[in-house]
C-alpha cells in the first residue's frame, strides 16, 4: 500500500492571531508553526499501517521553503520521504489540484489528511481531492482498517458514529479517534537524525486559477468583561432578560 499523508503547516494553537498589510496577511512574526493537529492523527495512523502492514508513507505539503521544518518533523516521526509543492497555498481548490497531480504521478492508493486545518478551517481539500481523482472518500474518520483493497471505517455523525465499508483507492480525512491523542508520536533523537537523510523532493506547481481569495481578515469585536454574579437567581434573571437564551 502506498500512502500519501497531506500535511498542513499551521500556527500553533496557542498563537496570538494578528494581521498585517491592512489586515490582508497573517502576521507570522513570532508564531511557532506545527503539523496541523488533525493531520497528525492521520500521520500516526499511517505509521501504524507502515509498521504492521508494510505500507510506504510519503508526506506532502503545498507551501514555500518555510514549511520544510514541518515536513522534516513528519519524516522524524517516521514517514519515508517528503514532497513539497513549491507554491503558496492560495485556496483549497488550488491545493487539492496540486495534490491530485502528486497522487496521480506517485501512484498512491490511500491518501490520508486531517478533517480541516486549524488556520483557514475550510475542511475542503480532502473532499475536493477525492472528487478530482474520483477516489472514494470518507470525512471525519474516527476509526479505520484496511485489508487488501477493502477498507472498513467509522465516521462521526451527529450524536453517534456510522460504520462504513469501501475500497481503495481512497481518501480519508481523519480526526481524533483515527488514533487516540495519547498514541500521537513525538519524534525521538534517532528519528530526527534519520530525517535529515531522508529525501525531501521539491516539485513545481501546476498552473491553476484560485477560485477564492481572502480580501481581508478581521478579528471579532472585543468582548466586554465577564459579569460576575453572586447567586443563581441573578444568573437566571440575566440569562432570561438580558441574554434572552432561556
Amino acid at each position: 500500500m502506498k500512502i500519501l499523508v497531506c500535511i498542513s503547516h499551521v500556527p500553533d494553537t496557542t498563537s496570538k492571531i494578528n494581521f498585517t498589510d491592512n489586515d490582508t496577511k497573517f502576521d507570522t512574526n513570532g508564531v511557532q508553526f506545527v503539523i496541523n493537529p488533525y493531520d497528525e492523527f492521520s500521520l500516526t495512523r499511517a505509521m501504524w499501517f507502515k509498521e504492521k502492514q508494510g505500507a510506504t508513507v510519503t508526506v506532502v505539503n503545498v507551501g514555500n521553503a518555510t514549511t520544510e521544518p514541518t515536513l522534516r518533523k513528519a519524516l522524524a516521526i517516521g514517514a519515508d520521504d517528503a514532497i513539497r509543492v513549491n507554491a503558496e497555498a492560495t485556496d483549497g481548490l488550488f491545493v487539492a489540484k496540486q495534490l491530485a497531480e502528486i497522487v496521480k504521478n506517485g501512484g498512491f492508493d490511500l491518501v490520508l489528511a486531517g478533517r480541516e486545518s486549524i488556520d483557514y478551517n475550510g475542511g475542503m481539500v480532502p473532499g475536493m481531492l477525492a472528487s478530482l481523482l474520483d477516489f472514494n472518500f470518507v470525512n471525519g474518520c474516527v476509526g479505520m482498517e484496511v485489508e487488501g483493497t477493502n477498507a472498513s471505517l467509522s465516521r462521526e455523525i451527529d450524536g453517534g458514529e456510522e460504520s462504513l465499508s469501501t475500497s481503495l483507492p481512497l481518501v480519508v480525512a481523519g480526526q481524533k479517534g483515527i488514533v487516540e491523542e495519547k498514541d500521537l508520536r513525538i519524534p525521538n533523537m534517532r528519528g530526527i537524525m534519520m530525517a535529515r537523510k531522508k529525501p525531501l523532493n521539491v516539485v513545481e506547481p501546476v498552473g491553476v486559477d484560485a477560485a477564492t481569495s481572502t480580501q481581508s481578515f478581521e478579528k471579532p469585536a472585543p468582548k466586554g468583561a465577564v459579569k460576575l454574579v453572586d447567586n443563581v437567581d441573578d444568573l437566571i434573571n440575566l440569562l432570561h432578560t438580558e441574554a434572552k437564551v432561556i
Partner: protein
Amino acid sequence: MSVLVFADSSEGKFKKSAFEVVSYGKKVAEQLGSKVVTLSINGGDASELYAYGAEKVIEVKEDSLSTFNAKAYASIIQQTADAQNSNVVIIDSSIDGLFVAPMVAVALEAGYASNVVALPSSTEPFTVKRKAFSNKAFSNTVISTDKKVIGLAKNSFGAHENSVSGSTESFSATLPELGVSSTSVERASGKVTIADADIVVSAGRGLKGPENWGMIEELAEVLGAATACSKPVSDLGWRPHGEHVGQTGKPVASNLYIAIGISGAIQHLAGINASKVKVVINTDADAPFFKAADYGIVGDAFEVVPQLVEKLKAFKQS
C-alpha cells in the same frame, strides 16, 4: 439563474439547520434578484420549508439512500443545480454538509467557502465572511468563479419565518455508484446531540469524578441541553469521547454554553468560541475561562449546580 438551498434531513425529518439555510438562501436570492429553489432528499413535509420562504421545493425520493451518502448527495445536488440553472448553492456546515459540499464544488467547478457567518457583504465581487483561525478571526472571502458554493455555519443566521405559498416538484436524479456504503449507525437515543443543541452544559475536572455527573445531566435535562465535557475528562474515561468539545473534539455553536469546573485552556476555547453566550462556574476566580465568558459565578460546582437545578425548575414552571 437561481439560488439552490440543500435542506438536510434525517430519518424523514428536516434538520433544524434546514430552516436556517432556507432563511439564508431566501435573503441571498433577494440580494441577487433571483429565485430560491430548495432541494430535499428523502426529507419531511415540504410545507415546513414554505414557512421559511421556500417557494419551490424539489423533492428527491430515493429508497436506496436511507442513510446519507456523500457521493450520491453531491451528485443529486449538482444535477439539481444544473436543472435549475443555479449559480449559488447553499449547504449547511454540519458534519454531513462539510462532507458533501467540497464534492459539489468540484462537480460544479465552483469556488467554495465553508463556515460562512453572514449574508454576502457584496455580490460583485461575491464576498462572504467566514470563520478562520479556529474562531479567533474571520476571513472576508471573495468567490471569483461563476458558480459558488456556500457552507453556512450553524446558528450564524438563524431561522426566520417568512411564510410563502410554495410548490413542490419531484425530481428523479441519476445515482452514481455509491463507492462507500453504510454498514451500521449507532446513535445515542433520547439525548439532545451537541450539534443540534441550543444549550450545552459542559463540565470538567472540577467535578472530581464520573460519579458526580448526575447533577450535570439533571441540569441539562431541565434546560433541554446536551451534555459535554473537557478533554481531560474524556481522556480520563469519565465521559465518552463523543462529548469532548474543543480544538480536537467537537465544535460547539450553541446559543448558550455553560462551563462548570473547566479552567478554559485555549484548545477548549477554540472549540466553543462560536457559542453566543458563555457562562462559567468555577471555584478559581483566576481561571482563564472567566476572560472569555459573558457571565460567571465564582463558586463551588457542588453548591452552585444543585441550586441552579432547583431554581431553574421553579423558573420553568412559573
